[in-house]
């Protein structure tokens, strides 16, 4: 009797927990960014994900492989707020708990600096001389209050930029 009760209600409880748990991971896809040859070593460009997040993609070497590139996310590794680039201080700043990061995304101050956390990087790959980035394809509707997007369609081609401005 007890075993029966345990088994039936237990199974229902496990199913209920599983029901509340997300059914699938966040959808991601590889998106085309630019031709590898179009980004000179030392140069960078601003890429906008389908959800609107701005990603600074910088080329740091000229081996011609994907390892030349880094794509910094602007999501703070501490508790998930959005960092922004402060050009006067040459750093990324996170307003939530005063986290700071240098140009390469390494934590330099605040809780993420103390914990040695860096800004996360998006996975990149190059195929046939073309650079691709793996980004989430689902996102919330962006609020009207946000600054106007720079009007560039990620599928048509990137804007070539100069600095790590996010």
């Amino acid at each position, binding site marked *: 009797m007890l075993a029966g009760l345990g088994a039936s209600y237990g199974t229902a409880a496990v199913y209920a927990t599983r029901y509340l748990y997300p059914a699938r991971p966040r959808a991601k896809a590889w998106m085309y960014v630019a031709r590898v040859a179009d980004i000179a070593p030392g140069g960078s460009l601003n890429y906008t994900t389908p959800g609107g997040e701005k990603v600074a993609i910088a080329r740091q070497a000229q081996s011609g492989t994907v390892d030349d590139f880094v794509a910094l996310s602007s999501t703070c590794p501490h*508790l998930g707020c*959005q960092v922004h680039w402060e050009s006067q201080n040459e750093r990324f700043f996170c307003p939530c708990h005063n986290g700071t990061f240098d140009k390469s995304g390494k934590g330099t101050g605040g809780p993420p600096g103390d914990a040695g956390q860096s800004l996360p990087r998006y996975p990149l790959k190059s195929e046939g001389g073309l650079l691709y980035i793996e980004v989430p394809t689902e996102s919330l509707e962006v609020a009207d209050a946000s600054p106007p997007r720079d009007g560039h369609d990620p599928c048509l081609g990137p804007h070539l930029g100069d600095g790590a401005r996010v």
Partner: protein
Amino acid sequence: MFSLQAWIRERVPVGPEQLRELTNEPVPNHLKKWWWCLGGTPAYLFVVQIVTGILLAFYYKPAPQTAYESVRYITEEASFGWFIRGLHKWAATLMVAAVVLHQMRVYFTGAYRKPRELNWLVGMCLLLLTLVVGFTGYSLVYEQLSYWGATVGANITDSVPVVGVYMKQLLLGGEVYNDNTLSRFFILHAAVLPVTMAALIALHVTLIRLQGVTEFHFKDEDPKKAKFFNFFPEHLLTELSIGLVLMILLSVLATVLPAEMGPKADPLTTPEVIKPEWFFYVAFRWLKLFTGTLAVLSMGLVVFLMYAWPFIDAQIRKWRPNSEASVWIGIAGALAIIALTVWEASVAH
């Protein structure tokens, strides 16, 4: 002749005598002074929250595309919506304050000691639930603060070792804030948490009834005078007058300092200056002082020590019967909380 009274008595076999018996808990004399009645204040405010919350829920639409607009509608277009929302918001603030004051009263008078340790545990659960209801509540408005508060809150659970990552996904219904998140917060805020709280409040009051309120005797009291007075009607009248004062206070606050609309949530930009509600200033400052996991684990430890306090205190008193440690620890704790709150309130970052 048909007698309504007899008809009811036959079906509900409770008479005025039994009712009197049931409600006539003798109340110690010191409860004539209002500051001993702080426990009734959160209970009263809880009822205010249920009523105003149900009213808000008639128009509120819990989805990222609709939530902000529906709260704006409540605030600006629905007749007296601003008043209902103001009451709900101010009662939430006062409720946190009242729970904290009530807990301080219990702490500094040692009312958590044997045999009332279990009720202290119930009270601690109610304190945490009140904070969580407040948190989920302001996440519903879908302002900037709602969005970033929810994101930071979910990532705090993520910092808990081992189980954190699952807890976060359960809370958000995904890896990050997504279309399922707001309805979860709403169900927690308007159903799961209030029902749990109602059950715990019932348990809290039952335990009080079973054990009686702690008695205190003051030097200026006349030893010959009765030590107790009746719950009904004397104590009920005290509580009702507190209820009247609170309703006036709430109405004035809701009118003079009405609930407003902050900027709408923008998942792409965290505002340059961002602060939670005042009752989370302590935790917010703490998070700025230490790395993620350390801050979360140390806060967990503090909460654990608060739960365990009646048992820790009993050990201290076994060892040193006249120890005043509890008072000093209490004062130090209260000062630390006030200091961190004032610090957070006085700076932008």
